[in-house]
């Protein structure tokens, strides 16, 4: 009986460690944001003269 609880305890500890590791890894993943921006279009689009 004791042995069964011991195995269950080990499994629970293993799962919790696995969960904590993967969630902390997820937190460390960088978030990205891209801004595309324009201004002064002034009612007309002209191709760049370059």
């Amino acid at each position: 009986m004791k042995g069964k609880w011991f195995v269950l305890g080990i499994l629970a500890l293993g799962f919790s460690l696995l969960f904590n590791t993967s969630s902390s890894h997820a937190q460390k993943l960088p978030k990205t944001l891209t801004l595309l921006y324009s201004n002064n279009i002034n009612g007309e689009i002209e191709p760049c003269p370059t």
Partner: protein
Amino acid sequence: MKDLRESEKGILVLDSGDLLFKRFSNPAPENELKGISEKAYLIIESLNLMGYDAIGIGEDDLTLGKDFLMEISKKANFPFLSSNLFDEASGNTLFRSSIIKEVNGLRIGIFSLLSSDFFTGPFDPRKKGVMIRPPIEVAQEMVKELKPKTDLILLLSHLGYVKDIEVAQTVPGIHVIVGGHTGINLPYPPVIKNIVILQTTSRGMFIGRLDLLFNSNEPIFYNSATKISLENNLSQINQRLNSKETPEAEKAQWRKSKEETERTLTQLRGKNQFTNHIIPLQDQMKEDPNIKTLVDAYKAKFQKTEIPPVPK
């Protein structure tokens, strides 16, 4: 834009004003009003197709008056923003003063400001029926309102570059100013008191792209180009220090430079980096077929037909 939207998850497309009409000099003549207003509708329809997320208001957007601007805003799939532009009669803001967009798990607060300095005076017809509150005062109020609810605050500014710097120096809490009116390309955007200031030149010749990468929760940013440049400097300094040809007296100076460069690089650790590109709009760029159809229809209706020269 379409390709980017398909390949990237966290994108916001923004404009900071002076979008709809040519630079104002005089009220438009009666016979040109229809063409001018239909062109403004065409622009809004194109921006709908391009998936813009929000626009700010510039003084030239009021060329056909506040009622026209309010009416045309109903055709847009995105909000018109202005935090300091008020309806004189009701005392309410003409448009929404801010929005919060959730992108890639980040809550982005966006507000917009317009400068009263760009009108020709109290009798400028574009000012009829509107009132503009002092931008710095309103910026402080907006930051106070948005800060508890957001991770990042963006200002769509139609204040001009000089005023953008003043805002950055006096209003903490904003993270990015997307500037307008001055019409200058800022390929290497200044960062003043942790506020990144952006702008591109006029007539849609360029579009700006800013990529922000969040490694830490505190949104303090530095230009990735700065880091690369510092690392290159450090490598050159080390070469000088390791070279037998460098005189000892000179090495003392290089050691000092090395310490300073290393200190600056250490300060960048833990902050977030950005890259900024100013992308030229070129003739050979692929046109969107839907927008082209709209433009062709407009041209067929309003473009003046050229009178062939009289044969001699």
